[in-house]
């Protein structure tokens, strides 16, 4: 029996023993990850929503009534050459009326009564380039446009955008905070489990030291135990989160974590598990040295 075989046996012995403790630690680490994943999921979805909304944002630059259609089109060409502008679209007076009809069918009758007496203004719709599709970019572009000759007003609707932006940033801050708190508490939980394992095996550890087992032979199984616990807990947490996410899908549409974040969470689990194991073994150094 080579010493490697013996080490593998010891490690399996660790992982197979105390199924109760293992199950409970797993549940605990998983729960911690469920809390973390929930916030990650919410902020990930809010961000996606924000990004989509931002991409859909168009600045509407209403043209002064005295501008002719030709002048309007020339202005649109000018704007399309400006930095930060992805595309422009000129909306003539006729088109504005058609759009109004399409968007507000219930007011159509009203418009019929008005026709010829009242005109919706022509406008230029401006879509922005990726780097500009955030709140600051949109606001500064709108200001630039409204200051231009021939443009009476530049508006961008979506009144809820500032609120959404604020919510996303609150969630992001909370996420960093929670991530730190949970990483620390997961590391503590794993450290404690490994510590418990060390204590419960203190006799074994002591006797191993007495019969001359090298330090790494004694500590390695604990390190593997901690890392595996962290990994399994992260995967368990992701599984529970996925189930909850599916159950809520019908009520609140959203998308689950993308692979990148998924693996980041798994890595976080393994890393905190390993760190926890090292912390858990530490106070047992004297014991592991075989001094009793």
């Amino acid at each position, binding site marked *: 029996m080579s010493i490697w075989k013996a080490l593998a046996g010891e490690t399996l012995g660790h992982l197979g023993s105390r199924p109760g403790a293992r199950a409970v630690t797993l549940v605990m680490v998983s729960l911690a990850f469920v809390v973390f994943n929930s916030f990650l999921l919410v902020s990930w979805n809010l961000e996606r929503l924000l990004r989509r909304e931002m991409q859909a944002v168009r600045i509407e630059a209403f043209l002064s009534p005295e501008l002719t259609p030709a002048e309007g089109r020339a202005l649109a060409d000018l704007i399309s050459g400006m930095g930060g502008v992805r595309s422009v679209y000129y909306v003539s007076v006729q088109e504005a009326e058609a759009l109004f009809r399409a968007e507000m069918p219930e007011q159509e009758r009203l418009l019929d009564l008005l026709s010829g007496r009242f005109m919706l203004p022509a406008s230029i719709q401006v879509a922005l380039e990726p780097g500009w599709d955030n709140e600051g970019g949109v606001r500064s572009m709108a200001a630039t446009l409204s200051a231009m000759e021939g443009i009476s007003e530049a508006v961008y609707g979506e009144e809820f955008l500032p609120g959404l932006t604020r919510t996303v940033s609150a969630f992001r801050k909370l996420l960093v905070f929670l991530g730190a708190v949970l990483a620390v508490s997961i590391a503590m939980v794993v450290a404690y489990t490994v510590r418990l394992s060390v204590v419960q095996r203190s006799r074994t550890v002591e006797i191993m030291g007495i*019969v001359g087992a090298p330090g790494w032979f004694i500590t390695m199984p604990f390190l593997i135990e901690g890392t595996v616990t962290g990994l399994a807990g992260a995967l368990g947490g992701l599984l529970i989160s996925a189930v909850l996410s599916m159950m809520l899908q019908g009520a609140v549409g959203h998308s689950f974590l993308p692979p990148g974040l998924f693996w980041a969470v798994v890595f976080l689990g393994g890393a905190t598990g390993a760190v926890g194991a090292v912390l858990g073994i530490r106070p047992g150094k004297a014991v592991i040295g075989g001094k*009793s």
Partner: protein
Amino acid sequence: MLIDIRDASKSYGRWPALEHVSLHVAAGEFVVISGPSGAGKTTLLRLIWMGDMPDSGVVQVAGYRSDMMKPGHLSRLRRRIGVVFQDFRLLPDRTVFDNVALPLVVSGSSGRAVRKRVFSLLAMMGLSHRRDSFPHQLAGGEQQRVAIARAMVAYPEILLADEPTGNLDPDATAGIISQLMDINRGGTAVVMATHDPRRIPPGSARFLFLDGGRLTDSTDWSDLEGER
């Protein structure tokens, strides 16, 4: 000199357990340490297997000095020492076989060699039928014999035995003593602590007496004889 203790003292809190003890044991010697309860016998053996370091003085065992131990030295030293503890210290969650095999396993012996050695030792101890039992299923004397087998299994250079026959009847005691003498004849130095040195045939060992943490060489067989 295999074991070389020079002027070692050790106290636990206010209580001195050993005071200025010097002891030299050559390879292949058989040393018997006796003395009343609390004299410091177990403490002296602990210093030898370096389960504790002396407060003052130096302990040198198989070339390793207590004041110059580096990480990794301890495990290498321990693989050359076999210890029988007064309270046995068996692994409660492993069978008799696994307990006895442990020192061979951690030093990387092959599975076949381990089985051969352990089976022959268990047979010698009259425990073959008990090899799959766990320590808590054994009688006191049976546990003690398992502890002795574990100490012997890896052919140590030094064998430390702390009260190895306290739970054994006179016949079994005689058997264990003769096995220790066999091992000793094979070249292993044996240091045995006991409160009943009369069990060892006179002349076959060096007898030391410990009392109140002080070691005296003076106690010889005739003194003990008189005490009977």
